[in-house]
């Protein structure tokens, strides 16, 4: 569904991503794991078109999206949930969700969009309870749900999730991860998930890629990666536990 070939990205003058090739198949959850500054977020931001690659190609569903503008990439079916759940804090929950459907605005869409907002509330009932509240008053977990809900309002076929568990209590972040699986199972959404918390990410992902200093050093099924000693030591904290 999504195919990246030899993607090079410069972030200001830093060569942040080097010759990265990866693919995500329809209906898969793929985890992109790695430490801070490995280039994961840069890569994700490039897929959604906010950054430009300086080399290589990106294809989505057979369409070349390498040079597409962000709004056209959203229209093609890719939605990003940004890191630190950037919601519009002064705006109400419902307005945040409406903004997510910005691209599909129009008179005839109103009923359709209201229907979809109801679906988001069904999935995250707490958002429904707080629909009039300003987003800034929500807890971290609720803001994350709102950020996901807002991304869903664009009717994406693929979701790019950037560190959905960051800064959340373990129980909360696990709930968010459960929702990600639900989204895949219920709506057939394809997910590319960037996480520093490799343990959680590999638990729900089908496959994974490990990035280090801008390069992919390992790839494989989640099972294989969980077995890999390098991954265990660097990202799963397994040996620390054993000692």
């Amino acid at each position: 569904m999504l195919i990246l070939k030899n993607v090079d990205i410069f972030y200001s003058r830093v060569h942040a991503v080097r010759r990265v090739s990866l693919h995500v198949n329809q209906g898969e959850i793929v985890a992109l794991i790695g430490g801070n500054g490995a280039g994961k977020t840069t890569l994700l931001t490039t897929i959604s078109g906010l950054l430009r690659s300086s080399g290589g190609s990106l294809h989505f569903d057979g369409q070349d999206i390498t040079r597409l503008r962000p709004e056209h990439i959203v229209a093609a079916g890719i939605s990003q949930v940004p890191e630190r759940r950037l919601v519009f804090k002064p705006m109400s929950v419902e307005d945040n969700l409406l903004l997510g459907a910005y691209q599909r605005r129009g008179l005839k869409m109103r009923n359709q969009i209201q229907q979809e907002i109801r679906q988001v509330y069904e999935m995250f009932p707490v958002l429904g309870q707080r629909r009039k509240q300003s987003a800034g008053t929500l807890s971290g977990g609720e803001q994350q749900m709102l950020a996901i809900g807002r991304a869903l309002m664009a009717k994406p076929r693929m979701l790019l999730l950037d560190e959905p568990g960051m800064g959340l209590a373990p129980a909360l972040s696990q709930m968010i991860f459960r929702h990600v699986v639900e989204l895949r199972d219920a709506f057939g959404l394809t997910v590319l998930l960037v996480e520093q918390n490799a343990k959680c990410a590999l638990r729900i992902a089908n496959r994974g890629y490990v990035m280090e200093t801008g390069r992919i050093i390992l790839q494989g099924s989640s099972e294989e990666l969980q077995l890999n000693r390098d991954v265990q030591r660097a990202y799963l904290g397994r040996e620390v536990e054993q000692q």
Partner: protein
Amino acid sequence: MMFEPELEGMSRLELEQLQLERLQATLTRVSRNVPFYCKKFEELGIDPYDFQSLADVHHLPLTTRQDLRDNAPYGLFAVPLREVVRLQTSSGFSEGTTVFGYTLGDIRKWSRLTARVLAAGGVGREDVVHVAHGYGLSTMAFGMHYGAETLGAAVVPVSNGNVRRQVGIILDYRATTLSCIPSYALYLADVMDEMGVNRNVLPLRWGLFGGEVWSEGTRETIQERLKIVATDNYGVSEIMGPGVAGECLERQGMHINEDHFLAEIIDPMTLKPLPPGEIGELVLTTLTKEALPMIRFRTGDLTRLLFEPCACGRTMVRMERIHGRSDDMLIIQGVNVFPERIGAILVETHKAEPDHLIVVDRHGGLDRAMLLVEANMVAPDQIKAQQKFIDLTRQRLAMELGLVFEVKLVERSTIAELQTGPNRVVDRRKF
């Protein structure tokens, strides 16, 4: 049956993407963790990251068995020894020791790949697999053993001694599958004859053979004598062991597990890639090996790749049975000739492999090739039949090899007199 249908039948486009991703990750790991490759890339001025497509692979340096020996035991490992859970060594090569390591992840992958080979050869969960490869340092027995277990079949780890007892075990345990080298299968058949075993009560159905060069004729003999379906499979210990490639029931070449190994065919003399479909030396790059990744390893085995789609539904490219070793290759009048290929042509032409000898010499700067064939193929008094045999052989050789041989029918003793070594070549040229 396919063990991993979603992988074995994936489209070529998906496969090439996967190969590129895996190759790039492998190159990153070897250039970080294996000083040998790091140095080699530097010397040749190669940036392993400057890698656009799979077609660029032939810019990378080749790895030879000598490189493994020079860096023995652990110099080419890409992980520290504490992450290695298994060490094996190669069969067959006596010059110096080489050691092959596997991580836990490598062993798991290896098991799945040999499971694919077994499933392609007809084996399923209900089968009882009699593994008559020698258990020990060589990779054949353990590879097939793990594959059979992973597939869910029952393994009888007999190893390769005491052949009469083996026959008893096959009968008693109702083994349905035989895994061994082809010559051992023939030996088993001989012993069954001696013991008076009734072929029609043999439980065997499938035979998976690998580990040595064999011919189509031998396959027919084994299938006929043991009443089984015999498939060929291919392994290289330096790369992994068995599980690199295996035949499906079509028996038209071995499917290479290309999602784990990248295959190329090169000219063993010029080391340049050969056009698709030509016979040359098989070069393999591991795409997922953790402990001992190999970049463009020269297997020394001669084969050709078959790109036509296979009726079984697997999309993985096939390789022909091994034609021989590149070390044995002759160059006659500038044409690469593999002695084993000549034997195969004789079988194809005459449905039998007579004893034969290739004699090459040089007259006035020109190479001359002669093929001496044991005369008992044709009755000695039938001049016409003899002439026909000679003409047909010469035509077929010219057609297949593009080289004119002088073909002579001789007594067996003449061949024995002329033969200087174990192989069927006498090269009298002075270089």
